[in-house]
Structures are given as C-alpha cells and as structure tokens.
C-alpha cells in the first residue's frame, strides 16, 4: 500500500490528523505523523521528515501531506535529495492537510496506486463546505 506521511508545524495537528485518518482505515496502513520542530515546538524538522518518509515507504510509494510554508519547503528539499529510484515513488500532495490526508489514507487502503492516491488527495482542494460558492 502507498504510505502516508503527515507534516505539520504542530505535533498535535500531525497526530490528530493521523487519528482522524486511522478512524477511517483502521490499522492496515502506514500513516506516519511528523509534526513540530526538533524540540517539539512549532516548526519543522527536516531530519525527522526524511526518517518518516523512509519508514512509510514499503515499496509502493509514499504520499506526503504538508501544511504551511516551511513544511512545504522542507518536504520539497527532501524529495529533491532522494535517490533517483525512490524519487519517483515519493510525492507531495497538492492538497489541504486534514482533508487530503483522510482521502489519501482511504484511497491507499483501497489498494489504489500512487498516482491515484495523489489525484484523490488533490480532490480535497475542491470539497465544498457551503452551498453559496
């Protein structure tokens, strides 16, 4: 299955997002939460993100969801520095964090491939929350 990595500025947000997604898919899927800076404060820790990606990668790919600024930049930096073989199967989703993670987790648990999981997560951008849009 495609692994899912959640990168947030906040450890609580990453953990909470993982809990929401796991409620949908049980324990069948590798979802790794990676939030906060080195000391658990608000921020990002590229070394831990790198480790989370390799932990989530079971060969069928990894989708990374990131929240803001430095999380997105850090993930981009790490993806660029992956070995060529791994580079193709690890991608960042163009999606909002919570909704994107839930959809990615569901798609992955359904056995979809990397491209399909990414496309599913991206759909989360367009989820309507009010009627008057």
């Amino acid at each position: 299955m495609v692994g899912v990595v959640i990168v947030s500025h906040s450890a609580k947000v990453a953990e909470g997002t993982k809990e929401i997604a796991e409620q949908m898919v049980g324990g069948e899927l590798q979802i790794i939460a990676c939030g906060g800076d080195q000391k658990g404060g608000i921020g990002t820790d590229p070394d831990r993100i790198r480790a989370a990606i390799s932990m989530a990668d079971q060969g069928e790919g990894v989708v990374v969801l990131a929240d803001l600024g430095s999380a997105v930049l850090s993930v981009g930096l790490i993806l660029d520095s992956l070995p060529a073989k791994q580079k193709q199967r690890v991608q960042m989703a163009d999606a909002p964090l919570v909704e994107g993670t839930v959809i990615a987790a569901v798609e992955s648990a359904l056995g979809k491939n990397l491209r399909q999981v990414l496309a599913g997560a991206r759909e989360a951008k367009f989820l309507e929350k009010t009627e008057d849009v």
Partner: protein
Amino acid sequence: MMICDQNMVIRVIENMADLIAEKKDFLTELDSKIGDGDHGINMNRGFVAVRSKLGGVRERSIGSILKTVGMTLVSTVGGASGPLYGTAFMYAGNEVGEKNELSFEDVVALSEAALAGIIKRGRAEVGDKTMVDTVYPVVEYLRSVKLQRTVLTNLAKGVTETARRGMHSTKALMARKGRASFLKERSIGHLDPGAVSSYFLTCAVTDEAPEL
C-alpha cells in the same frame, strides 16, 4: 586573481553567526509584524549550530565547508529560512566544489548558484517581498562588475549598498510568498524579515557594518 581562500570563508561564516546573534531580537520583532515571529530565533539557532561545526571542517575544501553550512541550516533552523538558506549554501558549495581559493569569477558563479537555489526552493521572484529582493540585485551587480577597474573595497561597498537598497524595496511591497502573503495589503509598510537577514548575511561577506 584569487580574492578569497578557506580562512576567509570560515571568517565570513563566523561573521554571519556573530551578526545574526546580534540582530536576533530585531529579526524576530520584524517577523512578529508580518509573519510567525520566529525568524531571529530560528536563524540564530541555525548559526549557533553552524559555528559548532566549523572547527571540524576548517581544513576542507570551500565547497565542502559551504555544503556543511547548508546541511546544518536545513537540519536546525526549523522555519522556512532553513530550507531556503540551506539550499543556497548547498548550491554554492556544489558550484565551487573542491577549490581552496576563489577568483572573482568563482565568487560570481557561487552567488548565482546560491540565488538559483533560493529561487528553486521558494519559487519567488523579484517583487514578491522575500529574500530574493535582496539577493537578486546583488547577483546582478556582481555580474556587471569588471573587476580590473574596481578596487575590492569599492566592490564591497557596492555590494552592501545594492543589498541595502534591495532590502528597503520590500517595505513598499505587498507580500506574495510566505506567511506574510496571508496579510495581503496589511503586509505593506513592513520590511520583509528574510530580505533583512539576507542583507545582514551580505554585510557579513563584505565585512561592512549594517545600516538600516
């Protein structure tokens, strides 16, 4: 003509660490107006870590020193400036490679590589109210200089002044990248913290005292 060796590179990086430590509170204060208020703290955390690594790389090539600085910043800064400055140093290090001395042309190429790294990572352009507004004109200026006709102290003054003008240009701009872009027109009237830290780092290179 060689204008820079390993010792100078180490001294410049120590200058950077000193200047960032000195300006930490100022940078954080700027960032608290249009960002998340941690730029000075993050940059200082990064450069404290960089300083502690310098002893171990003193004897290595300039490329290796710069790459170590970049990787250390990426690992320790904790904010967007980590990947941005980190990529800048890593690209610069890659550009100069195993050299132990740099000519003016090498310094220009190094600066171009650093700028390319920042742009690749942050996808910002001139006018977006970011560090690119400081760094881009400096690289343009360096490209335009014919060193034979310019004494090095004049060159340093020119670079510092170009960076200062670039930094100041961010005040009137509306942010289009980073957390400040959420503030839209409320970001106007404030200096961009990244543009200011880039100015300080430039001053560390030219060994000139920063003036705001």
